[in-house]
């Protein structure tokens, strides 16, 4: 086994042990297990962050109220990217909640999973810039963490007909 492979198996083993714990306990668990090995800790933390972001639909998720998301948004609507009744992918737009710095937010119905979500639609010009998208993802995580500090935050980043959306 190469050095790289041996290292990866350490990272993987610690990551897999960490996800057996509750999200709140993970950081302390990883820090304790990694000891002085800062690289190991960082690599596992980075995987855990990605894991929280890409949590799949079969994971348990909180029933999140869109009003909490609404409360954190500036009350500003300078550009309509969707209107009520629009269907974007499997999402049906129900109402406009407001506009953030990087896009518009709507309450929408996920018709596949029959649940309400918040949709953040990113203007095309911003979606073309990876830096903007990264910021949108961060903003989504921040918004969600305000409500549920210990729980995986965003549902996903989706693209439909050239429209980039963050599902909250």
């Amino acid at each position, binding site marked *: 086994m190469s050095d790289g492979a041996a290292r990866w198996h350490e990272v993987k083993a610690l990551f897999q042990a960490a996800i057996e714990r509750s999200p709140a306990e993970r950081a302390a668990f990883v820090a304790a297990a990694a000891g002085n090995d800062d690289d190991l800790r960082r690599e596992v933390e980075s995987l855990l962050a990605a894991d929280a972001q890409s949590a799949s639909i079969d994971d348990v998720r909180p029933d999140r109220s869109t009003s909490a998301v609404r409360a954190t948004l500036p009350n500003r609507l300078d550009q309509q990217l969707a209107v009520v009744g629009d269907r974007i992918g499997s999402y049906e737009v129900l109402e406009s909640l407001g506009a953030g710095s990087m896009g518009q937010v709507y309450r929408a119905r996920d018709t596949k999973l029959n649940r309400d979500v918040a949709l953040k639609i990113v203007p095309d010009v911003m979606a073309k810039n990876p830096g903007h998208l*990264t910021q949108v993802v961060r903003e989504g995580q921040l918004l969600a963490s305000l409500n549920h500090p210990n729980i995986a935050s965003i549902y996903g980043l989706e693209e439909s007909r050239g429209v980039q959306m963050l599902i909250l």
Partner: protein
Amino acid sequence: MDRSSDIAGLLDGWRRGDREALEQLLPLVYSELRRIAARQLKKERPGHTLQPTALVHEAYLRLAEQRQVDWQNEAHFFGVAAQVMRRVLVDHARRRSAAKRGDGAELVSLELARDVASTDLPILAFDAALDRLAEFDPELAVLVEMRAFGGLSNEQVAVILKTSPSTVKRELRTAKAWLTNELGYGGRHE
């Protein structure tokens, strides 16, 4: 012996545990998949999203015809088909790229990729990431390949890799996290 009964015979041999039958089956599966894929790809518009899982299932239905294949062999078939499908799609994307008819960033709809990026992924980037993963964790790369390109369930993958579905699930979750970062969908990437 015509081609389809040839394949059926090999599937039977394989079912009885004949390893040589598998070796002979592979190029036949490859040509069958290529044929089906070529027909699909001809109709393809630029920016069209490919559905490899649907192609694999179509190939399976053609190959197995009406014959009963037990589900363990069915799982093995999809394991083989997944490798072939990956090859077919990557070759196609490379040819398009070389012919400058596309930008090499064709999107492919992969079950796993949707979980990683919640969107369709450029096939060549995904393929290259899988190659890098295989350098230090070949078993994990194979597992991802089967789930992403072959449409196998966790249970089917577990049968092929002789492990439990819960292990497959845990490995897959690890792979998703790694791919999310590797492909630049992770929040830590600038």
